[in-house]
């Protein structure tokens, strides 16, 4: 199961759940994640004490691709998509 909490201007947040055990669930999760990525949304995945930027979702392997900062360099590793909870934050405006 993959859960995504999308911050919403009217409802606080809207939860989207995808059953990644089925092909259909994985496909729709991949579709939605791709759409969010294209619109510049930051998907932030929390694992233990660390928070990662999600860079994509591999529907075939059911894994989330995240960026890890190591020695100042960013490299991509794969995190299991199952039982993952992530938050989608829309593009930000530096305010005043």
């Amino acid at each position: 199961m993959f859960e995504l909490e999308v911050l919403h201007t009217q409802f606080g947040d809207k939860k989207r759940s995808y059953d990644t055990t089925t092909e259909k669930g994985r496909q729709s999760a991949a579709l939605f994640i791709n759409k969010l990525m294209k619109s510049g949304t930051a998907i932030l995945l929390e694992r233990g004490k660390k928070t990662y930027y999600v860079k994509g979702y591999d529907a075939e392997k059911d894994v989330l691709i995240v960026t890890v900062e190591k020695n100042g360099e960013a490299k991509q590793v794969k995190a299991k998509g199952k039982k993952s909870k992530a938050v989608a934050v829309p593009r930000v405006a530096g305010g005043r």
Partner: protein
Amino acid sequence: MAAHPIPLYQGDDWDKLSDRTVEDIFTEEYCKIFKIDIEQFSASQEMSERFEGLALRTVRSTDMINEISNEIAIKYDFPYGIALPAISNDNSEITSPVLARGTPMAHVNIVDRVTEYAQRLRVKGVQIRNSWEALGDKSISVVNSTDGPMAIWEYHAGNRVRKFMDSLQARMDSTMSVESEEKAIALLKTKISASQYRCYMLNGAFPESSKRSPGIFYFFRKGLPVVVISFNKVQSGKILCCLCIHPYGYYEYTTAGVMCPTDEVIAQLLLMRANEHKFWAKSGQWQASDPRACL
């Protein structure tokens, strides 16, 4: 010679086209020139038509407006809804939200480094030569006048009060609800420690240390910019700056974002935890003396 962007209809050709075709041609060109997504443009058109219909009805409420914007958001698949202007607000300066580029219904977002006082004067058509914040709690702007350059100023205390009042008004006139804030608080509770949660509920703010730079603490405040304090060389702490960042957008000249305050805190917290460098880069950075720091 470069191809003309609009098909070259000549003479009576335009008269032969249906109104719909002409409208489509101009819509497409308008969207191309201003780099607007056609689907978003259609959404805004539909929303404006439906609001127009609502305006003609004798019974109408803000709930109806919220319902329409929610229906449009679902129809056009805008995952985080549509931010609306602070509707009952008469102050034209804070009516429209400033939205992040590329988000649904985004307005033009102009971020420059003049003082807030100069920004407000510029909106009124005053030509600004220079502007700065002065010690002694005031903002100074040098403006052009018929008698040459002239310095005018505004005291920060008055500005702070106005900002505070405008923020209250913007939130009250926006689509935010108590339920959305409660939902956001419940989500925040799952992301922070019990002690941080207690601090947030009692004080409206909580600290979190920087993973990247030891001795630096971020103070996340409800509905206000994040304060960054260094305890490295000064035992009592030294304010490095205040970081102002809003997911989706904010109401200009206020501290109110288009999302409920705790949703903004969640976004700020997670962005900071994921990548501090990026978090700073994306934020508006204000020094402690600037009224936009809200200290």
